[in-house]
C-alpha cells in the first residue's frame, strides 16, 4: 500500500492588494483613502500525492500553482483549509519538517552571490546539520551528476544561468529531502541546459523515489518528467490525471502529415480538414480524432500519397485549449466549471 505524502483539503489563500488609482486627482485622494482588491490566489484545492510520485502543476500565469507550492513549503500561511506534508502542517515551520523537504525556484536564488557555491554548501551543511562525511559524499555525487564539480570554487555571480540553476539544485538536495518542490526550475534556460536538468531530475527522482511537485511553463519538462498532471486555473484544480488522459479528453484533433508523390499539393485539401501548413511536397491537415481513419482513406484514394504520419497536436496547443475552455466557462456565470479529473 502506498502512503500519502501530501494531503491537501480545501486549501485557500487570498490577499489584499492596493489598487493604484489612475490620474492625479485620484493619486491625491489615495493619500487619504486607499482602495484594495482581494486576490483569490487559491480557491479551495483538494489533492493527495503518494510517495514517489512526480506531479506537474500546469496553469496560466497567476493560476495559483506557485502559491500552492509556497503554501506546501510553509512560506506563506493559508486563509483557510488544511494541508499535511509528511504528516506535518507546513506553515508551522517545524525544523523536523523543514529538514525533510526542499524548494527550488527558477526565479530566485539562495546562494551567496559573491561567494563560491562551495561556501554556501558548507553553510547548508551546518544549518541542516549534515554529517560531514555524508555531506562530502552527497555533494560530490550531485555535482558529478550535474557536471559542475569544477565550478565549485568560482563565485556564483560568474556562473551562467544554467550552471547557477544546477548549483541551486545541488544546494536544495544536499540534505537528501524526501519531498521536492520545483517552481519553474528551467525558466530562462537554453534548450541544452533545460534538457540536462530534466535528465538529472528524471534520474534522481527515479533512483531516490523522492516525491516531487513541479510547476513549469515548458511542456517538455512535463512530458519528460511527470506521469501525473494537475491543471490549475483561477485557483482551482480543473484536471487531475495522466498526460494521456489530457490528450483523450482535450485533444479533439489529430494532425495528419502527407507527403505527395508528385510534389504537388492538391487544391481541394481543405475539404478533409483544416490545412495547417503547405510546404511542397508536404502538407499538414488537422482532422477530428474520430474521423481520422475515414478521412485518411479518402485522401489515399484520391491522391498520390507516398508517406503518411498521424500525430497528436503539440502538447502546448492542447493545454492552451484546456485553459481557454476554462476561461470561457468562467466568463459565463462567474463560476468555474471544474473538471472531473482523476
Amino acid at each position: 500500500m502506498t502512503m500519502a505524502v501530501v494531503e491537501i483539503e480545501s486549501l485557500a489563500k487570498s490577499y489584499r492588494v492596493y489598487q493604484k488609482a489612475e490620474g492625479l486627482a485620484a493619486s491625491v485622494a489615495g493619500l487619504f483613502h486607499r482602495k484594495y482588491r482581494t486576490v483569490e490566489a487559491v480557491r479551495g484545492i483538494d489533492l493527495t500525492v503518494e510517495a514517489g510520485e512526480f506531479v506537474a502543476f500546469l496553469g496560466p500565469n497567476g493560476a495559483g500553482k506557485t502559491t500552492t507550492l509556497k503554501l506546501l513549503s510553509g512560506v506563506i500561511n493559508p486563509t483557510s483549509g488544511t494541508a499535511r506534508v509528511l504528516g506535518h502542517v507546513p506553515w508551522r515551520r517545524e525544523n523536523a519538517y523543514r529538514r525533510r523537504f526542499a524548494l527550488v525556484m527558477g526565479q530566485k536564488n539562495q546562494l551567496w552571490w559573491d561567494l563560491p557555491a562551495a561556501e554556501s554548501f558548507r553553510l547548508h551543511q551546518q544549518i541542516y546539520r549534515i554529517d560531514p562525511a555524508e555531506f562530502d559524499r552527497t555533494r560530490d555525487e550531485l555535482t558529478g551528476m550535474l557536471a559542475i564539480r569544477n565550478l565549485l570554487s568560482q563565485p556564483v555571480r560568474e556562473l551562467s544561468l544554467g550552471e547557477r540553476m544546477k548549483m541551486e539544485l545541488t544546494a536544495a538536495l544536499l540534505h537528501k529531502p524526501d519531498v521536492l518542490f520545483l517552481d519553474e526550475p528551467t525558466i530562462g534556460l537554453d534548450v541544452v541546459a533545460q534538457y540536462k536538468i530534466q535528465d538529472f531530475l528524471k534520474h534522481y527522482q527515479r533512483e531516490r523515489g523522492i516525491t516531487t511537485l513541479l510547476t513549469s511553463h515548458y511542456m517538455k519538462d512535463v512530458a519528460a518528467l511527470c506521469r501525473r498532471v494537475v491543471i490549475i486555473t483561477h485557483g482551482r484544480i480543473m484536471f487531475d490525471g495522466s498526460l494521456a488522459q489530457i490528450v483523450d479528453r482535450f485533444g479533439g484533433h489529430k494532425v495528419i502529415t502527407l507527403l505527395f508523390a508528385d510534389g504537388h499539393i492538391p487544391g481541394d485539401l481543405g475539404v478533409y480538414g483544416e490545412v495547417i501548413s503547405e510546404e511542397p511536397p508536404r502538407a499538414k491537415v488537422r482532422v477530428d480524432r474520430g474521423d481520422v481513419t475515414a478521412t485518411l482513406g479518402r485522401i489515399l484514394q484520391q491522391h498520390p500519397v507516398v508517406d503518411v504520419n498521424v500525430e497528436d497536436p503539440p502538447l502546448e496547443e492542447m493545454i492552451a485549449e484546456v485553459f481557454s475552455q476554462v476561461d470561457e466557462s468562467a466568463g459565463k456565470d462567474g463560476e468555474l466549471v471544474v473538471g472531473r479529473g482523476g
Partner: protein
Amino acid sequence: MPARTAVWWTILRISLEERLVYRGDFALGTLMRFLPILTQVFLWWAVFTAASTGQSIDQTRIVGYSYHDFIAYYLLTMVSRAFSSMPGLASGIARDIRDGTVKKYLIQPIDMLSFLLLNRMAHKVVYYTVATLPFAFVFYLCGDFFPNGWPEPQVMAAYVASLLMAFLLGFFLEATIGMIGFWFLEVSSLLFVYMLFNFFFSGHMFPIDMLPGFWGEVVRIIPLQYLAYFPAAVFLGKVEGPELIQGLWIQFAWVVLFMFTSRAAFHLGVRRYSGFGG
C-alpha cells in the same frame, strides 16, 4: 512652444502621481525630520546653561548667537534644506549612466537636465504640499525662538530669493557630481564625501560662524553655505545691507556657474559615452 509646455506639464504630472503613491513614507518622513531639532533644543540649552556663568541665559551669546538664535537658526536651516537637498539625484544620474538608461535621453527628444529638474520640482512641490502644515505647526510651537517675529518685507523678499536659488544651486551642484559617473563608474564614495562636507560646511549642523581661523575662511569661499546657512542668516538678519545684496549676487553666480558646468559635463560625458559605443 505650447507643445513643449504640454510635454513638460505631463512630465510634472506623472512625477507628482508617482510621488503620491507612497503615502505612508511621506507622512512619517515629514514628521521625523523635526526630531533632531528637538535634541538640538535640549543640547544647546545644556550648553548655554553651562556657558552662562554668572549672567542670565538670555544675555549669553556664543559667536553672536543667543540661545533663541541657535534654535531659530536650526529651524531655518531645515527650511533651507527642504529647498536645497536633492536626495538620490546624483546617485540616480550615476546609476542611469552605469546601466545605460541614460541612452533614453539621447534617443528621445527630452533634455535630461530639464527632465530631471522638472521631476525634482514635482518632488518638491508634493513635499511642500504635505510638509507645509507640519512646518507651520512646528514654527508656531517654536514662535518663542523668534522674538523679533517676521523680518522686514525687503529682507523677506531676499530670503525667498535665496531659498529659490538654494534649490537651483543644490540641483545643479548635485547634477554636476552625478555627471562624474561618465568618467568614473563608482561615484558612491565621492558622493559620501560630498554629503559629509555638505552636512558640516553648509551650516546644517552648526552656524558656520563657529568655525575659527582657516576653516572659517574656507567655508566662506566655497558654495556650500548657500545651501543652508545663507538663507537662514538672511532671515535672522545676520547678513544685512550691502553684504546681503553681495551675498545674493554671489549665490546667483554659483547657480549660473553650476548650471553651465552640469550642462558642459553632460555634453562632454555623452560624447565620451558614445565614443565608447555606449
